[in-house]
């Protein structure tokens, strides 16, 4: 067995391996978008493979993501493509692939490795910490959103009386929640702000870079560096599902944006939300409210069954979004995946490991399939 970085010509084999194990039909275009066409231009790409008799039997990759803090920009890596053939499990292939990638991370000065996973134990064995769980903010538009949130179908299968009562209770609860949300949204709709211009982007505005820097000055901590190049790749060139981006302007100055989309499951997704207030005099709370409302109405008009976004930690902007969201009809649901985080040498040197609460995280961190 050979454990090494991917070689030229193995891309298709890796994708076939993924499709075989997940019973998926990911295209090569989607594979390339994720691992090759991102805005990390260094080669080789951080994609480890286990090869046995010419067959791919394990993969583990990084998607390098640039982040920003008060000291400027730096590279991190999102852990992705963790996959070992069931026939090869128990041979510590995951650890051995990661050893290779830890070296890569140190050589290329990646500050952190992070990811989202329900399978935390393997990561903990490698020294990853579990600093948080993703939680949800959610508005139901119809009771069809409930199975999506619960990751299970309310239809099919034999149901006993208890199941039927449970489903009836869920549906009634959803109807109540939906009505309460609708009323709050309708009330908020009337409280729009004069003087602000809402535009839909066809491509990212070059001011996003400046807004990211202002964001860090205003809210502190660290977050993904969303310059126009990153947003073009992540939101507009995304071959899984692209995002609709509405941006707020005050006299042509970008004050913030919200990105939302609709998943194949019919659910609306709040992908990203950023604001940084400068001289416009508008309060952050008002801008967030406007942007959230754009996402809610936008996804509702797209026929979504509901809209969900992430609530992660105690970063002040995350807390503010959650508080404003609740005010306009969102519910906070404590259900999600674990965050895994590994500080590399470059991260320790930067001194940016002051805790995961420093990170502002949105669904833009999912890099693809989930919108």
């Amino acid at each position, binding site marked *: 067995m050979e454990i090494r970085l991917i070689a030229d010509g193995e891309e298709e084999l890796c994708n076939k391996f993924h499709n075989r194990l997940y019973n998926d039909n990911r295209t090569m275009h989607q594979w390339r978008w994720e691992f090759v066409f991102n805005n990390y231009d260094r080669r080789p790409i951080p994609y480890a493979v286990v090869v046995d008799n010419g067959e791919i039997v394990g993969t583990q990759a990084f998607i390098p993501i640039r982040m920003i803090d008060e000291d400027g920009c730096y590279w991190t890596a999102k852990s992705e493509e963790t996959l070992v053939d069931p026939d090869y499990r128990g041979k510590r292939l995951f650890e051995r692939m990661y050893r290779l990638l830890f070296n890569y991370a140190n050589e290329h000065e990646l500050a952190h490795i992070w990811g989202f996973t329900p399978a935390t134990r393997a990561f903990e064995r490698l020294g990853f910490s579990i600093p948080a769980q993703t939680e949800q903010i959610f508005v139901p538009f119809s009771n069809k959103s409930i199975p999506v949130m619960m990751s299970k179908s309310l239809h099919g299968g034999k149901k006993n009386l208890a199941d039927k009562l449970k489903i009836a209770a869920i549906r009634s609860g959803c109807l109540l929640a939906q009505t309460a949300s609708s009323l709050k949204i309708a009330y908020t709709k009337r409280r729009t702000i004069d003087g602000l211009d809402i535009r839909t982007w*066809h491509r990212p505005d070059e001011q996003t870079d400046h807004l990211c820097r202002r964001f860090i000055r205003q809210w502190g901590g660290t977050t993904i560096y969303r310059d126009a190049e990153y947003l073009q790749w992540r939101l507009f060139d995304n071959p899984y599902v*692209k995002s609709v981006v509405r941006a707020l302007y005050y006299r042509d100055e970008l004050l913030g944006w919200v990105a939302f989309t609709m998943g194949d499951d019919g659910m609306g997704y709040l992908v990203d939300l950023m604001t940084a207030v400068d001289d416009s005099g508008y309060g952050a709370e008002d801008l967030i409210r406007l942007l959230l409302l754009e996402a809610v109405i936008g996804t509702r008009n797209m*026929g979504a069954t509901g809209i969900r976004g992430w609530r992660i930690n105690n970063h002040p902007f995350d807390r503010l979004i959650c508080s404003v969201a609740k005010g306009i009809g969102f519910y906070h649901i404590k259900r999600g995946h674990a965050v895994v985080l590994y500080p590399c040498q470059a991260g320790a040197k930067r001194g940016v490991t002051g805790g995961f609460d420093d990170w502002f995280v949105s669904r833009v961190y999912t890099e693809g399939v989930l919108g």
Partner: protein
Amino acid sequence: MQPPEVEYIRDQIANHVAEFTTLESGDLFDSGLIRFLPYDEAATIQERAIAVPFDIPIPKSQEEPYKVRFNDTDLTLWNRITPPSDNSWRAIPDGSAPLWYTNRFGSLIPAWNLFGNLFYLLTFGEEKESSQKDLHGRFAASFSPRAKYGLLEIPAFNEAVAALVGACAGLRDSGQPAFNIDGLIGPPVISLSHDCDILRGNDIWTQAVRLVRIFRPLVKMRLPGISNSWWIMRNAVAPRAFYFDNATGMIDLERCFGYRSTFYMLNGRSGRFGARSGLAVIPELLKEIPPEWDIGVHYNYDTFLNDERFSAQMEQLQEVTDSDIVVGRAHYLRFDPEKSFSFLQKHGISIDESSGYSDMIGYRNGIAGCFQVYDTVLKRPLEIWELPMTIMDTTLVRQYGPESITRFSQLLYHLSRVGGALSVSFHPGQFFNPEHKQMLGVYHRMLIECRQTGALAKTARSHVDSIA
């Protein structure tokens, strides 16, 4: 000098090859591999070439079709021709279901009336020979002789071109027609459009129809349709809900897939079959439509072949938009194959999407893609292009019910093997409207299928622009 009909079909094939295959149209014709000949001359050909007979008449009654496996799909052929009488010709792949006849020189003759079928379909032969019309004066799908044999969903033109492409590539490379043309066919194309018949759900006609639906069941001694009163109230309070709002939602949803579409605006005289929402709401919607999307006119019911009313509608619409209106589709698909095209051309329309059926989905002209319209009286092409509408939202669901998406996906897959464009019309009021529960999520699932098949989106206008 070839007859004008031959020049015409040759041009349509060349355009189609340029748009949907990776070949240059020159690869097909400049090499001299394809020749259109009278049948007697085709029968005597003695060189490596494809001889397409152009003088075989179409039989009066529809002949039973047969299928030939080709490029991981089936080609459906009809109006089979007999091989030349000398015994030097053999059928490929076999005599029971032949695609080609070939001789020892490597010459090929199509085994079905390729030229005749295509010319007949592109020039509306079926309906010109029929006097049947429905209540709105339309030629319904059920009147077509192809309906009996399930041929309405066969893109005969695309299949013929795919076979020609395979034959050319095969003759060039191996001396035998190819049945696998992987790499020669481009991704399938989807042409999305939306007829904006109703943009506000509170107009008198829409509300009156709901009112009738409340009481109509009583006539049959059934319970009244009380739920309609909810829709009456809902749109009385929020007129744009599920109509205008849906149009903006469709634009956003298309953005999520990287697709764009054409919005056909219905203005002019109001009435049950007319413009129900009035003109005032149209400029508001136009503001929401991004410049990359196209805007066209939905010819009002009463403008059918009426110069004065048509001009008035065009003028009114042109007043509220900056873009030139050159694309259109008839409301209720009211359309006369002999008179409508020159009429539309006279009024500045250069691309039309009216050639579709309201009672079934299907390729009315046997083509998935656009073609230049031919005037059979003047024997020349007109300066107007037709992109026949293949699928209308409610028609698909009424016809296929829970299998609608599967059928849509099959049509798209077939086009991914033979090349072509599927034209889909989806009304904003059917996109996401709890009043029409069976339609919920249909458009979204169609777009997911398009993405999975790798389909590209092109509006009717961009088809013609790319050809021009």
